[in-house]
């Protein structure tokens, strides 16, 4: 059984803002909101234009509720202003850039000043502290490093926490297990589905995870469920925590579960949350389900004003038993668009269309089938063979498969299995094919 003492850590002073009295928190939020709106208005042409159109000036922000006067920002705004259009700092003040895939074509680029990096590290320290981790822990970071914010975000947090960091990055499961065992790792960061895979592989290798010092898992970057959490906790005798973040806001470190494991605390002194109706765009009260919207209150290089995450959740009204005063959201499970997440990578069907189109010249009938094989997500793209691309030579078809696979990998950064299928085998419904079949068992 996962016991609560697995989540007992010394209070970390950096966590102090988690416990601010509501009034104090709100006044901090308001002063930061005024600053960030002014900054966005002064330095980002897109915000200024949109605010001018609405005849809103930074001075109109006199209370937190005034935030609803501000225009929304959406993912395509980042693409349309690519690469530097939403930057509010000159390149010389920027110390880091990250990129994630957009819906199509150009990636989305996000930027950080040194102060932003420091804030990011601090919210990750608060995340780790909420998960019961401290300076003595040995943290294995299996999130992928690179342009993806997950790896370096968790890395800098673990480093600021004063823990020992083992940057294993993603992949090479056998080595991950070897490291976990040989170094007495006490906490791991990765996607929950990858951890399920680690549990399975460890048992094949004869390694009993339950007997290892590992006691905490910090899991994020993809949706999961409470039943999955319980499976993980039982399978490895650890406490499994859900964390939430997105690179447009900062990366991981936007919200985190705590020992109570009932929802995720938003670090709302830096990220101001709203819930809106995705159809009418009207704000919804706490306790009502809707689309999550964030305004970054302190981000200098790239402020986000009312950024629509497309994630569906609700803000929990009751105070948390852990004592934190910052509000919580429920676990995110659904989206208000067709994006899906596989192995921690966000994928839009439109990106896959783009990749297939690049190879074949015309868009073939295709279908994306998601499965969870041995706890590891698999993406298969079934592509109907047409007379134009068919050949009597095995090599030519294998080459086609390979090219499609490469094109998808170049677009998404992850591998997909390409299956060539006979024409008309993919079901058409009302003319338009159902593009994504998600057969993953999330329990």
């Amino acid at each position, binding site marked *: 059984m996962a016991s609560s003492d697995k989540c007992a850590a010394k209070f970390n002073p950096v966590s102090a803002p988690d416990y601010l009295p509501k009034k104090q928190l709100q006044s901090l939020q308001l002063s930061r909101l005024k600053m960030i709106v002014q900054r966005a208005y002064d330095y980002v042409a897109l915000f200024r234009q949109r605010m001018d159109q609405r005849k809103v000036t930074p001075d109109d922000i006199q209370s937190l509720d005034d935030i609803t006067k501000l225009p929304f920002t959406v993912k395509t705004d980042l693409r349309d202003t690519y690469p530097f259009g939403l930057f509010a700092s000159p390149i010389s003040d920027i110390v880091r850039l990250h990129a994630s895939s957009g819906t199509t074509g150009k990636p989305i680029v996000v930027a950080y000043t040194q102060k932003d990096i420091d804030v990011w590290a601090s919210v990750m320290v608060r995340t780790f502290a909420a998960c019961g981790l401290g300076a003595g822990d040995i943290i294995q970071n299996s999130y992928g490093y690179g342009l993806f914010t997950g790896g370096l975000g968790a890395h800098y947090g673990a480093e600021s926490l004063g823990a020992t960091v083992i940057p294993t990055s993603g992949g090479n499961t056998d080595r991950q297990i070897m490291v976990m065992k040989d170094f007495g790792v006490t906490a791991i960061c990765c996607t929950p589905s990858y951890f399920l895979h680690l549990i399975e592989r460890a048992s094949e290798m004869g390694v009993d995870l339950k007997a290892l010092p590992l006691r905490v898992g910090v899991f994020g970057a993809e949706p999961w469920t409470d039943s999955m959490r319980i499976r993980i906790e039982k399978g490895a005798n650890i406490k499994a925590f859900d964390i939430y973040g997105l690179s447009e806001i900062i990366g991981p470190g936007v919200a985190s579960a705590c020992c109570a494991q009932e929802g995720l605390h938003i670090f709302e002194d830096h990220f101001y949350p709203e819930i809106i109706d995705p159809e009418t765009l009207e704000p919804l009260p706490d306790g009502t389900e809707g689309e999550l919207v964030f305004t970054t209150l302190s981000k200098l290089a790239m402020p986000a004003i009312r950024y629509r995450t497309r994630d569906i959740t609700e803000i929990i009204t009751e105070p948390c038993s852990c004592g934190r005063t910052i509000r919580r959201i429920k676990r995110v499970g659904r989206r208000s668009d067709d994006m899906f997440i596989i192995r921690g990578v966000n994928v839009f069907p439109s990106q896959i269309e783009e990749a297939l189109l690049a190879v074949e010249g015309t868009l073939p009938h295709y279908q994306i089938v998601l499965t969870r094989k041995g706890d590891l997500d698999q993406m298969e793209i079934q592509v109907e063979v047409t007379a134009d691309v*068919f*050949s*009597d030579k095995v090599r030519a078809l294998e080459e086609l498969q390979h090219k499609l696979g490469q094109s998808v990998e170049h677009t998404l950064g992850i591998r997909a299995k390409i*299956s060539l299928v006979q024409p008309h085998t993919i079901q058409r419904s009302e003319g338009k094919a159902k593009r994504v079949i998600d057969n993953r068992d999330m329990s």
Partner: protein
Amino acid sequence: MKINQLSVFLENKPGRLSEPCEILAANGINILTLSLADTEQFGILRLVVKEWEKAKRVLEEAGTVVNVTEVVALEVADRPGGLEDVLKVIESGDINVEYMYAFTTFSKNKRAILVFRFEDADRAVAYLRDHDVNVIDSVSLYQNLK
């Protein structure tokens, strides 16, 4: 001198091979020979039939992907070394073979027929004929097979 071969795309799943065969049977088309190239995920069925245009039409009507390729049929002596003699000529001509398969022996005069897919069929035919290899045209092939 070349023969039209049909190729049919198949997923490597049970039952997929019988589908085109049934369609051809239902339309009274006799398969003279076939070969199957398979990978883990898909296969390519290669067929030689007499009424290839009709076969192509009925297969396409049934929704399969069909491709027509020109292949070359060669007659060799059905004895040890018969194939080798032909291969030597092919090699000497620096002719690239994409794939090949053998016909069943059918005639009384101890000859076998091989089907070749060459990279450059025209050049191959010219060269082979110059070197006294018996290249069979479609008319005599179908007659022979009757």
